[in-house]
């Protein structure tokens, strides 16, 4: 009780500092609450929309992958099942529709187009076949104009409000849906409301089922994309599942039964990247708050040395003094949490009010997020209090007898520097140290797998925290050195006597270290994110020999329709190369990566099916040997011919050199590939290649999604194997060469127009690269806002530190002012200290950020099989450093102006009273 009382009274004396520290905690907690609520609201909106739209199906029948369908005859069988209340099939297809002239996509300036941007006159549209009047679930969508069609045939359509706006048509208007061989003319009879978040990603046109089946060629026999099933009450679900799993295996072994919880599980998986980002943002803000708390506590300990010594003198044992500081930290955290949680809720309500469409499903708060924010803050407060509490407990009671004096560090704190260096070395050791040899020495059966697991988990559990805490512990020594280097420079720049700036920071070296570390967190995060992002994307080189253009369709183009596609004017005959891309389970790429890492084994690779002979002719490939070295030039042609021959055989694959390195395979090895039709099958590696073109192909499907990275592995096989083992019935992606002897740019434009009329998009590799890069950088910048928020949060720590520094030197300032230092000089003196703090943050942030980037690159190579040369976006790094300095200066302005305006006598009196 006495300790709590002492802590409370201490807060009352240092009201501003306490408020700033509590504010930092509250802001970090509110950020966690708001961001996790944002994710939860998004998920809730998605689920609600899906439930509303799909009628909250208890179970669904879905195909094995994106290339296959579900026979519609199963709907009748299901309807006849006594356990089924309702079964509804829907068919999905995709087209690129023309936008209205005044509804063009993202602005594409002349420079954008020159750099490779594609004209954005299309909008990706989902066509949904609906069997009416049986499908009543569709009526749950709110009609805002017109009405629903009543039959399963006819040329009517119901669109969502976003689509109506973008294509510039309304009820009663006619639209044309492009197809490979023909166009489908429809009349809009109704407009429904779809949450803008979903409508923006996929505009929708609802069409009578049989009309769409006929248009897409899915009518013989009639097929659908999925069947939604609502069961009667009190049905034994396990029995139903067993019965229908057996039935589906008879119809098509790739068909799957997915329960509602799996549906939400799928949604969760797809939103997993957003969820991870939301918790990552929270963690970074709490880390920043931790250093701010540390700084505040260490200031409190150093200012109360005499009081704490007196406590020891009159009989407080070390443990009691230790507890006092820890109690202060916990009290600050509790108050911060109590303010932060409602504050986070307030942010969300304000956002909801402002962005109603985004939160059409309402705001959903995440209890897990709140618990994470609260528990995380308590943990960080405890960690932050450890050192100051220990220092406080080591204060000698003899110091109660001494006059109060502030001594600066005469020597740099070398011991802490070395401890910090050891901690910061954990991560590099994980990636560059002799782990494999250690595991081999320890007799582990599979040292390579152990190394991968240790690298992945070790990086996040030990490496990253080690870097952050390590640099914090190194900070005092770095400050000591930086003061001696930069103080004279700053003094000259600000026209101040150099001796005045000497040891400004080192008189409160640990409070400066804590603040510097708080500033470091944001900058290091920004650097790490941006370097990783730019490295992944920036390493692309455009290939020399590569198809002239790529064509992609949102919908599957059957083998039959591909013959029509191949006759597109401008295209070189015989050069249409279909590229089939599939995974064994249809899971998202990130799920494959995460599952393979957590499971410690392959759960599937991405399979690219091509016509091997045509592909080898069209794409520049560099054949490698089993050690990854390029084959001599005179052996390349022979290697290509051999690969072409081998690929004619069943279950042969070509792998990239990255794959070889990460999987430790060689030519002739068999490699297990999980297929959706035939389960695990052994494929033989017939060649190892490298090609920037392969990167483009892989990246097109990897980097279009949020947070996706390179897959756990990609292999190139034949179309025949893709059909046999993965059940593909067509392709969405094609490469093609343009006719020779004509201007390629003009020809491409003609091809684009011709294909565009059929609902397809075409572009050359430069354009693809631009689109993917632009999308990726947009996501990267969005994620980087977490780092900016952390830097802003750190400004509270700067304000705290500067105020404490000013307070402890009031008497000194009073003396200086009395003997002639001007108020402007005093202002610059304090701003110089803030600038030094900012510089400390910059140095720490640069060092930590670059170290994390180097290690993260190794992580990419170790886990994901891809390790491109590091690309550092120096402009962005420079902007980050500058932002940090601005933050530091801005945060110090208020205390600096305050003291500069104070009269000398007041400073002297206040300074004496403080001692």
């Amino acid at each position, binding site marked *: 009780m006495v300790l709590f009382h002492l802590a409370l009274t*201490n807060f009352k004396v240092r009201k501003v500092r306490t408020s700033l520290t509590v504010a930092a905690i509250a802001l970090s907690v509110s950020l966690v609450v708001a961001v996790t609520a944002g994710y939860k609201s998004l998920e809730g909106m998605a689920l609600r929309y899906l439930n509303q739209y799909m009628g909250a199906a208890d179970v669904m029948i879905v195909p094995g992958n994106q290339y296959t369908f579900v026979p519609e005859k199963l709907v009748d069988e299901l309807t006849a099942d006594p356990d089924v209340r309702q079964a509804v099939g829907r068919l999905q297809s995709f087209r690129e529709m023309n936008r209205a002239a005044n509804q063009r996509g993202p602005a594409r300036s002349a420079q954008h187009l020159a750099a490779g941007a594609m004209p954005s006159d299309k909008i990706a549209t989902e066509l949904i076949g609906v069997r009416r009047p049986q499908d009543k679930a569709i009526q749950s969508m709110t009609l805002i104009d017109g009405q629903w069609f009543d039959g399963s045939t006819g040329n009517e359509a119901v669109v969502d409000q976003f689509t109506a706006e973008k294509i510039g048509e309304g009820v009663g208007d006619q639209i044309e849906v492009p197809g490979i061989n023909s166009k489908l003319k429809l009349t809009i009879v109704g407009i429904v409301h779809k949450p803008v978040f979903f409508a923006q990603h996929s505009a929708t046109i609802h069409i009578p089922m049989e009309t769409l089946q006929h248009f897409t060629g899915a009518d013989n026999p009639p097929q659908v994309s999925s069947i939604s099933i609502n069961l009667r009450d009190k049905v034994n679900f396990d029995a139903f599942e067993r019965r229908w799993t057996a039935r589906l295996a008879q119809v098509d072994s790739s068909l799957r039964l997915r329960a509602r919880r799996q549906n939400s599980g799928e949604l969760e998986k797809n939103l997993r990247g957003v969820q991870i980002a939301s918790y990552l943002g929270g963690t970074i803000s709490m880390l920043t708050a931790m250093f701010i708390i540390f700084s505040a506590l260490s200031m409190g300990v150093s200012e109360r040395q005499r009081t704490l010594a007196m406590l020891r003198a009159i*009989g407080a044992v070390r443990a009691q003094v230790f507890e006092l500081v820890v109690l202060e930290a916990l009290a600050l955290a509790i108050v911060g949490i109590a303010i932060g949680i409602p504050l986070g809720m307030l942010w969300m309500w304000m956002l909801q009010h402002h962005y109603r469409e985004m939160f059409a499903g309402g705001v959903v708060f995440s209890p897990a997020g709140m618990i994470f924010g609260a528990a995380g803050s308590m943990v960080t407060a405890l960690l932050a209090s450890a050192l100051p509490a220990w220092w406080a407990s080591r204060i*000698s009671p003899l110091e109660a007898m001494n006059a109060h004096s502030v001594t600066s560090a005469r020597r740099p704190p070398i011991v802490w520097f070395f401890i910090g260096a050891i901690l910061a070395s954990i991560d590099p050791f994980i990636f560059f140290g002799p782990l494999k040899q250690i595991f081999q020495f320890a007799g582990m059966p599979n040292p390579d797998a152990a190394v991968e697991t240790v690298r992945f988990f070790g990086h996040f559990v030990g490496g990253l925290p080690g870097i952050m805490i390590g640099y914090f512990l190194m900070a005092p020594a770095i400050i000591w050195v930086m003061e001696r280097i930069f103080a004279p420079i700053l003094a000259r720049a600000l026209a101040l006597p150099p001796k005045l700036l000497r040891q400004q920071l080192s008189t409160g070296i640990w409070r400066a270290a804590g603040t510097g570390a708080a500033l470091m967190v944001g900058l290091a995060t920004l650097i790490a994110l941006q370097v990783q992002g730019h490295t992944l994307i920036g390493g692309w080189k455009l290939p020399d020999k590569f198809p002239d253009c790529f064509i992609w369709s949102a919908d599957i183009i059957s083998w039959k329709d591909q013959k029509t596609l191949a006759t597109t004017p401008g295209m070189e005959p015989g050069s249409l190369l279909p590229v089939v891309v599939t995974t064994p389970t249809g899971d998202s790429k990130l799920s494959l990566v995460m599952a393979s890492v957590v499971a410690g084994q392959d759960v599937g690779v991405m399979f690219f099916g091509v016509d091997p002979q045509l592909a080898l002719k069209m794409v520049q490939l560099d054949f490698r040997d089993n050690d990854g070295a390029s084959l001599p030039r005179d052996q390349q042609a022979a290697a290509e011919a051999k690969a072409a021959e081998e690929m004619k055989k069943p279950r042969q694959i070509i792998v990239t050199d990255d794959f070889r390195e990460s999987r430790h395979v060689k030519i002739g090895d068999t490699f297990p590939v999980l297929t959706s039709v035939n389960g695990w099958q052994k494929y033989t590696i017939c060649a190892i290649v490298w090609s920037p073109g392969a990167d483009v192909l892989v990246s097109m499907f990897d980097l279009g999604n949020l947070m996706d990275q390179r897959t756990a592995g990609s292999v190139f096989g034949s179309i025949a194997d893709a059909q046999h083992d993965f059940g593909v019935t067509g392709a969405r992606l094609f490469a093609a060469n343009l006719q020779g002897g004509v201007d390629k740019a003009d020809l491409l434009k003609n091809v684009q127009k011709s294909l565009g009329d059929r609902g397809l998009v075409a572009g050359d590799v430069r354009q693809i690269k631009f689109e993917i890069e632009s999308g990726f950088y947009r996501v990267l910048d969005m994620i980087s806002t977490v780092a900016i928020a952390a830097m802003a949060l750190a400004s509270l720590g700067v304000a705290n530190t500067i105020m404490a520094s000013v307070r402890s030197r009031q008497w000194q300032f009073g003396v200086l002012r009395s003997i002639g230092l001007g108020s402007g000089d005093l202002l610059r003196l304090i701003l110089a200290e803030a600038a030094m703090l900012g510089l400390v943050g910059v140095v720490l942030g640069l060092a930590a950020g670059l170290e994390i980037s180097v290690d993260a690159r190794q992580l990419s190579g170790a886990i994901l099989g891809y390790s491109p040369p590091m690309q550092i976006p120096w402009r962005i790094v420079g902007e980050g450093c500058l932002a940090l300095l601005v933050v530091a200066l801005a945060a110090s302005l208020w205390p600096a102006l305050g003291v500069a305006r104070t009269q000398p006598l007041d400073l002297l009196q206040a300074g004496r009273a403080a001692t």
Partner: protein
Amino acid sequence: MQPLSVEKVIKTFRQGDKSVTALASIDLEVQQGQFLAIMGASGSGKSTLLHLMAGLAKPDSGAVRINGEDLAKMPDRQLTIFRRRNIGLVFQAFNLIPTLTAEENIALPLMLEGTDSGAAKKKVTQLLENLGIADRRTHRPDSLSGGEQQRVAIGRALVTDPAVILADEPTGNLDSVNSRAVCELLRDLSIIHNKTIVMVTHEPVVGAFAQDVAVIRDGRIVDRFGTNGINGHDLAAKYADSLK
């Protein structure tokens, strides 16, 4: 058993590359109820001796015993608790907690001990009355005069009913009126309440309030004599003689 005894205590300090002997084999005994003033010039070792008596520092050799217990042999935790219960400290700079009231400052050792708040309050109230500052109980140090602050500090030193009270220049920050009041208080504690008090001072006027004076020079006790009611002026002369 004497409440306080110092036996052949030696204490040295390092100053740069030199070793300085602060105390050179000091022997001293203080009887129950005795009020001893230790006088000496600046740097004579008197404060160091007091620190050793309080257990705030340990001698290089020798023993400091309070109620027969050798402080030098105790580990830190045991020593701290022993000091809390058996030694009352009065500092020159008062050293009150600025955020606590007068009564809270006095009660602090009892709170650290975990004493029941009711019992503590009773004891503190009694002390406040005895010290003549009951009407200032809810005031914080910044609204107390120097004399009042020192009374609070004395109250804090007395609250655990210690075996010994050690005062380090208790009048150093007080004016003459308050100095006299504090000295009289200490004398009354010794005579009336049989408290054992050791006071370090360099002022003969203050030393005259004690029963005994020990003169320390260059780390050695060079003289010890009773004051027998002599005034400060005479004490100053005697003190000067001791130093010759």
